[in-house]
């Protein structure tokens, strides 16, 4: 038992470092990017990785790929992180309300969630995003709609579990108002579960966001964005396969890092729950 205890924090720390790295690179993009991400010379188009002056090569318009990937981290990560934060808030609100409200409200909310659940995630995101002008806002809104039902279900289940708990009865008996009850008693129990669950969705959200951009529903060109870069480099796939595969590899690596972090966090939460129950 002792060995696993000693091992766990380091696994989380490792995953956290891996997930923090792209965030730091995004913040430091102006310092690190060797060139202007939007300026390209057509004479330098589609240079292979390793060309002097262009570490990762250049795209079809001769723009430096490394600089574009670094700058792209900003909208790409925002489009993944922001919807998760919004969905955590909205999902907690809906889930707790459904669990504590009367039967009619509960049924109405749960049936609405069922309808949203009936859509495959990517398709719902596409449906919502087509309604809006392509851009970061559209991606964030579309992904919030996609992610909220899952978070709400977790919040609902967790609130339901404690609804009849003695500490809630005690608080009610001692005269706590509904608001105090939710803020002081329910949220402290539900929030960690919701946050960890939402955290485990970040990798997925980043993948979805890049996917929407790939489909042309995200940030419009020439702003660098990972998914849009995939689409821009696609024509070069059969002549310059490694160049075209670079953004794909970046998204994969970032997704692995965030999913590994989410997994270790969930593991720790489950472990904590076992020791307290």
């Amino acid at each position, binding site marked *: 038992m002792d060995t696993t205890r000693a091992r766990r924090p380091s696994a989380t720390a490792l995953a956290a470092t891996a997930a923090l790295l792209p965030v730091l690179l995004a913040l430091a993009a102006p310092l690190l990017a060797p060139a202007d991400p939007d300026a390209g010379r057509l004479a330098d188009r589609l240079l292979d990785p390793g060309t002097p002056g262009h570490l990762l090569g250049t795209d079809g318009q001769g723009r430096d790929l490394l600089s574009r990937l670094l700058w792209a981290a900003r909208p790409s990560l925002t489009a993944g992180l922001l919807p998760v934060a919004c969905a955590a808030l909205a999902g907690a609100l809906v889930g707790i309300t459904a669990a504590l409200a009367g039967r009619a409200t509960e049924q109405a909310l749960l049936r609405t969630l069922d309808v949203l659940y009936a859509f495959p995630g990517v398709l719902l995101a596409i449906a919502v995003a087509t309604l809006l002008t392509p851009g970061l806002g559209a991606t964030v809104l579309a992904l919030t709609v996609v992610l909220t039902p899952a978070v709400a279900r977790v919040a609902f289940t967790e609130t339901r579990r404690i609804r009849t708990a003695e500490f809630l009865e005690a608080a009610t008996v001692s005269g706590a108002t509904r608001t105090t009850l939710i803020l002081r008693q329910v949220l402290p129990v539900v929030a960690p579960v919701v946050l960890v669950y939402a955290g485990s969705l970040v990798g997925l959200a980043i993948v979805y966001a890049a996917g929407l951009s790939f489909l042309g529903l995200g940030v419009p060109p020439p702003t660098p964005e990972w998914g849009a870069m995939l689409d821009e480099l696609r024509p070069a796939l059969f002549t310059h396969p490694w160049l075209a595969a670079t953004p794909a*590899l970046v998204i994969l690596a970032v997704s692995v890092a965030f999913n590994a972090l989410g997994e270790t966090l969930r593991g720790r939460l489950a472990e904590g729950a076992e020791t307290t129950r």
Partner: protein
Amino acid sequence: MTRFLLRRLLLAVPTLLGVSAVVFATVALVPGDPVTAFLGPGAPADARAALAERIGLDRPLPVRYLDWLGHALSGDLGTSTSAQRPVADLLLPALGQTLTLTGAAFALVLAGGTALGTLGALRPRGWSGRLTGAASTLAVSAPQYSVALLLTAVFAVHWRLLPASGTHDAFGAGGTGDLLRHLVLPATAAALVPLGLTAKVHRAALSTVLASDLADGLRARGLGRAAVLRHCAHNASPALLTIGGLQLAYLLEGVVFVETLFAWPGLGRLLYDALTARDLPLVQGGVLLVATAFVGVNLLVDAAHAAIDPRVRS
């Protein structure tokens, strides 16, 4: 059993109605006025009114929804603006191609997920357990479009081993062998995420059963490892069924990327082309078809679940 199925079917009706309402809304609420788009901004008011009346835009939204739903139920999903053909005529052949691809991917998901999950459950703390665990996490995190591009770069362009577009060679003999060769890369790209999830769920379920009294009892009666595993795998199968069904539904959404990148002439590719051309009736029809299939698959999974586990029915 019949009552259970009927109840589930009835429950699916409001869900499907909600789905259709959302799909309808995505087109009805889309910014931009179709009349202006058709006649131009300077058109006289009476011409605008006449067109609006002819295509039914002067009626209230709920009436338009019911009208649209009635047509959709009879198979009339409108006319594609880019192809100038009925949407249903475009969707049906594409559906067949998508089912071929998802079928192949689903076979990979079940075989790979069970194998990876079983290996992990047998020695969870050994190197094989850790390795299969890491492999599952990697698979779960691998976006279909990334995998598709990487597979193409390695197997189709660099090594020239496998074809990376279409369903058959243009000048080949064709046939099943050719189709299978064309299926390898797209099916793998589509399968990885669901395969990883299936492996994780199967591993967890099988580990629980292997640590239970049932397994101890079997071992105490002198059964060999293979026999114990066979019995335990049977008891862990409901979890596999549930997650497998969910993954089948998940495969339906992943095909948008996989089919686009491998030029597979299915629903996903059709949807991508429709999005690029802003062909809203086709987008609407495609989303409706896939979402309906999604609900249908979930229903089938519930039915299968009830068939093998009587506790679910009550």
